[in-house]
């Protein structure tokens, strides 16, 4: 029994590794056009437009109640849009029921059938495919090998661990070779260690199968590492779409800047506009700050200025270049790989500064300690100007 299982594993693994990869160049593989969903008077999703490429891992990121799950359920066919249309691979899916869509979903709770073995769970979706019994069996074996569960095929879901259940759910959803795989908070139920491991496994499997993934998550780290692109959602609307770098380094609004990572945000007024940079007056920092210019700035305009904590440098002496402000260290938290300083400016505003502990030093040799007078500075390119 063991011997045959081993050879089967080896054989189907070879098959799974065969290149099924598709180039991520088809621009409009999935098209969501003006989709709105209302429940009674509540608007869960409001006029969303989105285009997703073939073979992409795309994340919908947002807090609870932002409409990301409703959007996912509309893609799966569990909810009908109040307005708008959904196309997958050029086909209009809007009026198709869930069981006729080339889409499969991995549920947050995994939703494994408790009365069926792992094998039967994975095979369930194949009942409706036009396949021979042998073909079906091969596919199930291939899927179980892909998620490394071959030896658990005769267990029931309650007889395996949470991480294994997650992989069964993935294998079941991929067995029908859907054009689009939806993942609802795929890692939320796993503990931290397992989550990191599974994250890379997911990316690996996506790479092997070439399936387009749409992931719903509230975890920004998860979204940033997993996805090729992501959309930040709030109150049923998409606030920004882009790569992780786009969204983190070039947020288009205060909401996105605050939602992804942490940020120091200030009210400011534009004083002069140059070619590359603009000067803004920031009362809370007690002076003028030079920041990277954005389109459509006018002198005298009210605006917001934001800087991420890790882009600020602390020093004892006043630095020669960049925007420098004097302050006093109010608080200090040591995390091992980095430290977080809370520095109060002359106006009383407290800002966060994060610094990587690149050198191995004792407490006495730290850059700054409680109640030390320091300078903090940041490059003009690190200062983000935000109009909304």
């Amino acid at each position, binding site marked *: 029994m063991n011997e045959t299982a081993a050879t089967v594993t080896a054989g189907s693994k070879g098959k799974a590794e065969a290149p099924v990869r598709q180039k991520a160049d088809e621009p409009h593989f999935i098209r969501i056009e003006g989709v709105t969903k209302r429940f009674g008077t509540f608007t869960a999703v409001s006029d969303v437009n989105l285009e997703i490429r073939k073979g992409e891992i795309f994340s919908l990121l947002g807090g609870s109640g932002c409409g990301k799950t409703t959007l996912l359920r509309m893609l799966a066919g569990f909810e009908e849009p109040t307005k708008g249309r959904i196309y997958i691979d050029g086909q209009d899916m809007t009026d198709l029921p869930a069981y006729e869509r080339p*889409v499969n*979903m991995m549920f947050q709770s995994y939703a494994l059938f408790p*009365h069926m073995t792992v094998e039967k769970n994975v095979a369930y*979706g194949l009942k409706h495919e036009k396949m021979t019994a042998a073909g079906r069996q091969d596919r199930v074996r291939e899927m179980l090998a892909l998620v490394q569960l071959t030896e658990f095929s005769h267990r029931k879901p309650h*007889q395996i661990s949470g991480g294994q259940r997650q992989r069964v759910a993935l294998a079941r959803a991929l067995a029908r070779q859907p054009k689009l795989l939806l993942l609802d908070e795929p890692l939320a139920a796993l503990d931290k260690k397992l989550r990191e491991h599974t994250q890379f496994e997911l990316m690996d499997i996506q790479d092997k199968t070439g399936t387009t993934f749409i992931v719903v998550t509230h975890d920004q780290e998860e979204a940033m590492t997993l996805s090729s692109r992501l959309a930040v959602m709030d109150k049923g609307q998409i606030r920004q779409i882009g790569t992780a770098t786009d969204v983190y380094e070039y947020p288009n609004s205060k909401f996105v800047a605050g939602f992804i990572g942490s940020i120091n945000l200030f009210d400011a007024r534009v004083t002069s506009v140059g070619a590359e940079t603009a000067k803004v007056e920031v009362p809370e920092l007690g002076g003028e700050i030079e920041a990277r210019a954005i389109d459509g700035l006018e002198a005298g305009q009210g605006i917001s200025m934001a800087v991420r904590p890790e882009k600020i440098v602390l020093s004892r002496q006043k630095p020669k270049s960049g925007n420098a402000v004097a302050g006093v260290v109010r608080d200090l938290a040591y995390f091992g790989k980095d430290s977080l300083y809370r520095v109060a400016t002359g106006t009383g505003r407290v800002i966060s500064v994060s610094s990587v502990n690149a050198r191995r030093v004792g407490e006495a040799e730290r850059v700054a300690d409680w109640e030390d007078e320091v300078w903090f500075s940041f490059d003009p390119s690190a200062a983000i100007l935000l109009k909304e």
Partner: protein
Amino acid sequence: MSPSHHDTPLERWFHRRGWIRITIGTPYLWLIFFFLLPFIIVLAMSFATRTPTAPPFSFGGENPVLNFAHYQRLFSDDLYIRAYLTSVANAAFATFLCLLIGYPMALGLTRVSRSWRNVLLMLVILPFWTSFLLRVYAWMGLMGSNSWFNKLLTSIYNGIVPADWALRYIPMMNTNFAVILVTVYSYLPFMILPLYANLEKLDFSLNEAAMDLGSRPFRVFRDVTLPLSVPGIIAGSMLVFIPASGELIIPSLVGSSSRPMIGRVIADEFTSARSWPMASAVAIALLVLLVVPLMIYTYYDAKSYEKQREEA
């Protein structure tokens, strides 16, 4: 149990005074006094001999201490066998109908909104607020040959069939049909409630998962909802089948006297025939007939559960 397990003063007090034993013991005492003792009395009585004394039975003396005559009569007189068969057949058919009617109702209850669900559940339970006997009498009134209900059905029937098949009324009272009809009506809530409790706990995302994997709604029901509701089906069926097979009032009031059910046989033996030992023997036989299959089922169910646990 070490005292270090009981941390709060209340817990310590509870254990020191032995309250835990009383709490656990009370239901056992109840079962001993109100089930086990009467059962032993009935069992003993079934081996006694009928005498014209009060109470009308005795052991020993000129009679044998253990008298098996009543058990022998159970098999020799076909009245008893026919009564058992009628009871089991009627109860089984009524259970089946309850399941057929109750399942969609229970499933429907889990699918409507919260506020509707409470109203509908209330409607299921509401009949319990009037006397059972009264409800059976109400059915007698409805089924009687001169009732508006019977007249209505008769006129519909006469409107459909050829003229020479016409009836003055539809004979419903004192038939087996009436027994099953009233049994189904009376026991339906006992089917709906356990089924509802079971179906309500099922994770709806399982249905969505099956649909997502290509199953149409009926397949989803057959592959997911139905197999997962088997415990509810069994619980509901037991709750209907067991009391229905021993039912006394319904067959006595609306049933046919030529096809008695076992409950009525027991009552007749106790009262008009004044043969307490015979009545006891019939009752014990009924118990064995109903409880033994149940015990076998429970045994195998527990065993398969343990086997699953071991594998895990």
